[in-house]
C-alpha cells in the first residue's frame, strides 16, 4: 500500500500522460528563468544604449548558466559563468569603449533594414518553434543528479575527447597570437628610434632603411622619426 502511495505521489510514469498543464517545480523555475533570459536578450538587441546592451547580455548569459544548472550540467554552467561573463563580456565592453568614445544614447545603433530583420526573425522563430514543438512534444528528460558534475565531465573529456581538446588548445594559442599580431598594428613594424645615443654616435635604429621609411611615411608618423633625420 505504501508502494502504491509512492507511485501515486510521483505521478504518472507513462510519458504520454505527462501534461504541460501540470508542470513540475523544475519546469516552473526553468520557464521563469527562460522568460528572464529571453527578455534580457530582446532588450540587449534592441536598446539604443550600447553599454546597457552589453550589461543586458550579461543578464541573458547568466540566466542561461542557471538553465544549464537546471539541466544538471553543473560544470558547463560554471564554465559559462567564467568564460562568458568573465571574459567575453569584458572584451565586448572594452571594444565598445575603445571604438565608441561618447558613451550614451546612440540613435544610429539600428540599421535601416530593421523591419526586414524583424520579419526574418519572426519567420525563423515561427518555423523553428513549430518544428521543434511538433517533433519533441512528448519527449521527456529524466533528470538525474550528477549527470554533468566535474568528475563525470572531466572523465569523458580526458578519456574520449582528449584529441579535440588538445586541438582546441592549439587553436586558442593561434587565436591569441593572431589577436596580438592584429592589434599591434600593421603599419609600424619598425619601432620608433629612441632619442638616446650609443657609442657609435648615431641614435639607436637610425640606419638607412629607417631614413627611407621616414621619407616615404605619411606626415602623421613624421614626428616619431624626426630624431633619426637630425643626426
Amino acid at each position, binding site marked *: 500500500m505504501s508502494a502504491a502511495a509512492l507511485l501515486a505521489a510521483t505521478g504518472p510514469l507513462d510519458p504520454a500522460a505527462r501534461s504541460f498543464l501540470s508542470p513540475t517545480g523544475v519546469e516552473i523555475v526553468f520557464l521563469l528563468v527562460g522568460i528572464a533570459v529571453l527578455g534580457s536578450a530582446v532588450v540587449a538587441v534592441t536598446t539604443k544604449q550600447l553599454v546597457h*546592451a552589453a550589461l543586458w547580455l550579461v543578464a541573458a548569459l547568466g540566466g542561461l548558466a542557471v538553465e544549464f544548472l537546471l539541466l544538471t550540467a553543473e560544470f558547463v554552467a560554471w564554465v559559462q559563468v567564467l568564460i562568458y561573463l568573465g571574459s567575453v563580456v569584458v572584451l565586448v565592453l572594452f571594444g565598445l569603449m575603445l571604438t*565608441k568614445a561618447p558613451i550614451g544614447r546612440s540613435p544610429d545603433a539600428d540599421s535601416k533594414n530593421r523591419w526586414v530583420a524583424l520579419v526574418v526573425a519572426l519567420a525563423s522563430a515561427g518555423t523553428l518553434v513549430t518544428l521543434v514543438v511538433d517533433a519533441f512534444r512528448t519527449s521527456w528528460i529524466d533528470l538525474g543528479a550528477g549527470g554533468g558534475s566535474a568528475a563525470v565531465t572531466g572523465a569523458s573529456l580526458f578519456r574520449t575527447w582528449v584529441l579535440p581538446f588538445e586541438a582546441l588548445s592549439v587553436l586558442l594559442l593561434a587565436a591569441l597570437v593572431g589577436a596580438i599580431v592584429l592589434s599591434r598594428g600593421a603599419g609600424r613594424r619598425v619601432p620608433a628610434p629612441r632619442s638616446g645615443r650609443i657609442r657609435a654616435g648615431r641614435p639607436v635604429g637610425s640606419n638607412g632603411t629607417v631614413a627611407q621609411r621616414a621619407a616615404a611615411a605619411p606626415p602623421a608618423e613624421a614626428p616619431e622619426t624626426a630624431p633619426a633625420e637630425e643626426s
Partner: protein
Amino acid sequence: MHLAYPVVLAALLFSVGVYGVLARRNVILVLMSVELMLNAVNLNLVAFDAWLRDSLHAGQALTLFTITIAAAEIGLGLAIVLLLFRARGTADIDRAIALGDPAESTADVDEAPVGTEALKGRATA
C-alpha cells in the same frame, strides 16, 4: 522535464540573435548577437545530452568546445574591429563597403551619401 521547454527557448533565443545580427549597425553589437546564437546552440546541446543520457557526454563536451571557440572568435573579432576602427574611424558595418558592388550603391539613393563618405574617410585615413 519536458524536452520542449529548453528546445523552444533555444529556438526563440536563436531568432533574437538573428534579429540582432541583421538589424544592428555597430560591429560589436553584431558580435554580441552572434554570441546569443551560439548560446542557443549550447542550450540545445546540453538539453539533448540530458535527454539522451549519453554515456560519452558528447553534448556537454561539445558545449565546452563551443564556448572555447566563441572565446577565440570574440578575441579575434575585436582585434579586427579595432583595426577597422583605426583605419576608418568608424565601427559601422554599413560604412565598410570598400569591397561592395559600386553599381548597387550608386543605384540605391539611400546608400549613395554613405558610400561617398566612406570613400572620403578612406582618402583621409
